[in-house]
């Protein structure tokens, strides 16, 4: 394969070979990333943790030994045992089952917040970066205003004003989270808009909306996605914090932060109600953070040797 293949060679080959040839730089890049991935043990551990987390969420109803909401007052506050490895809570609910079913809520939280906040962020960022000038100035000052609040405090205020429910907590966090992606997308859009090919497309008569959607958006999306993977841990922590404060998921929903809060009054004698869901949060956030760190390291050219 050392001999450089000419265009004629490729044309003679099958369509698949042509496909591979055209994408060789990209494939090489991916191979290199996979190689670096294997060389970054922490990222690997992160991937494994997130994999387990997703599998648990996927098969939660099969894995949970008992109902997550069914009460059994005769056995309330029972300590961990072989039948109930994580013990029972103040209503006799199996803590393990609640934690397992709760993983579905966390996946839901991450997914919906990601979609909403990335959509808002990309819209605002691309419009600001593409048009520049007054539009940019106005949109970025609005972003600054949102950034003037500590994130959790603003999310709490939105959640309380909308009425504390899981859905509203998701909306509230999304309303705070988009600013991160807006700034990134703007920076990318500014880079792209001055490229000669954009000029050429415009000369061909493409509208601004078309250019933004088909040419600027695809170029802006990957740094935004990378940033998102690094923020997922924080997103879960924020959602769990709202749940803990009573401003997120409401009982009897087994959201992890809400379960920690449930066990708070029983902390002294019945430590398990608080301890296990908290560990579930810690492991999941750790997984996302390790993964995010790994991705950052892989993308950082300084360690690409």
């Amino acid at each position: 394969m050392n001999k450089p293949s000419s265009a004629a060679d490729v044309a003679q080959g099958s369509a698949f070979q042509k496909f591979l040839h055209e994408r060789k730089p990209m494939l090489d890049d991916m191979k290199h990333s996979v190689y670096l991935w294997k060389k970054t043990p922490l990222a690997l551990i992160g991937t494994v943790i997130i994999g387990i987390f997703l599998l648990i969420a996927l098969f939660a109803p099969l894995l949970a030994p008992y109902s997550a909401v069914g009460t059994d007052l005769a056995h309330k506050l029972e300590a961990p045992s072989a039948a109930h490895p994580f013990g029972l809570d103040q209503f006799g609910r199996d803590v393990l089952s609640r934690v397992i079913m709760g993983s579905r809520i966390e996946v839901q939280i991450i997914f919906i917040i990601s979609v909403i906040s990335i959509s808002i962020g990309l819209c605002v960022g691309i419009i600001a970066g593409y048009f520049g000038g007054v539009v940019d100035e106005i949109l970025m000052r609005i972003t600054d205003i949102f950034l003037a609040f500590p994130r959790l405090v603003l999310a709490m205020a939105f959640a309380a004003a909308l009425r504390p429910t899981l859905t509203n907590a998701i909306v509230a966090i999304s309303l705070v989270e988009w600013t991160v992606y807006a700034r990134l997308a703007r920076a990318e859009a500014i880079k792209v808009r001055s490229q000669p090919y954009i000029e050429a497309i415009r000369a061909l008569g493409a509208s601004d909306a078309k250019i933004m959607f088909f040419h600027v958006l695809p170029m802006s999306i990957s740094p935004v996605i990378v940033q998102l993977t690094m923020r997922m841990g924080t997103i879960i922590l924020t959602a769990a914090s709202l749940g803990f404060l009573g401003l997120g998921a409401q009982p009897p929903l087994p959201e992890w932060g809400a379960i920690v809060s449930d066990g708070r009054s029983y902390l002294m004698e019945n430590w398990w109600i608080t301890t296990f869901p908290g560990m579930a949060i810690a492991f999941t956030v750790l997984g996302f953070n390790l993964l995010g760190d790994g991705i950052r390291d892989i993308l950082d050219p300084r360690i690409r040797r």
Partner: protein
Amino acid sequence: MELGSFILKRLFLMVLVIFGVLIIVFVVTRIIPADPVGAILGGNAPPSTVDAMRHQLGLDKSIFAQLLDYLGGMLRGNLGNSLVSSRPVITDIMEYLPATIELAISSILFAVILGVLLGLLSAVFRNHFIDHFSRVFSILGISLPGFWLGLILILIFYYKLGWLPSGGQYDMFLFPTRITGFVLLDSIISGDWNLFFNALKHLILPTFILGYSSTASIARIMRASMLDVLHQNYIRTARAKGLSKRVVILRHALKNALIPVITIIGLEFGSLLSGAVLTETIFAWPGLGRYIVNSLLTLDYPAISGGTIFIALIYSLVNLVVDILYAAADPRMRS
């Protein structure tokens, strides 16, 4: 750009941002809630009471008139009266603020000292035990939920070992003389050493919980920045001149490696204020964070708006100061 005009520009932007903050808080406390009066009075209040309450809160006026009233009040420093304590919100805030400042200062000091030290040692002894320890400590610091870790530490150090108190700013039977509102400072001024050490003991767990994630972030930045600096040519030159490793690290490298840490401290202050909300709730700390949580849970709208505006003001001011410090240290940042 001259430093003076940079500061002026930043101040102008900050005024704009604060105006925006007021508008957002207005939307959150006056427009989004469907029925604030119902929330205050409960669902069964007679219509006459509801109308009287609506009139008292100014909710019977148009949204625009309400906005003007609200902005006018803010300009005069009038944040309204709390619906729970019936006192002016500003009085409440001034009472709770010192406790938060005390906790925030002790946490940021803890985070900066430990973070810089860990980052420095981590970079100098790269891939040695201390580096591994510091990296594990850091990744845990940004991953463990503070509200949960706080409860676990209370379980261990209060319930099991009995070494530290479970919460509050000082023991119930102590009565501090209120001079500045800062308990530690007041106890020193009035010479009440019993109270001083008692308050100090109460400060340990909250400081650790609030400062831990910032410690982690600072250590990570410090490590990366120090590694970067240690590879610079001027460090090699300094070593080649025959200076000892100690002098090179402490005199030449440390100073430059600290510059990125200044920015991260500004950013960390925001997460510190967010964290204060949770930390103060867990440790029954009588500060602004707990005041905001309580007002959110009781839908005390004037208190919510006053508290969030105050937090945003503090946060913006700290970031302004950090930006100015940074611009003073590095002229490239003034563009």
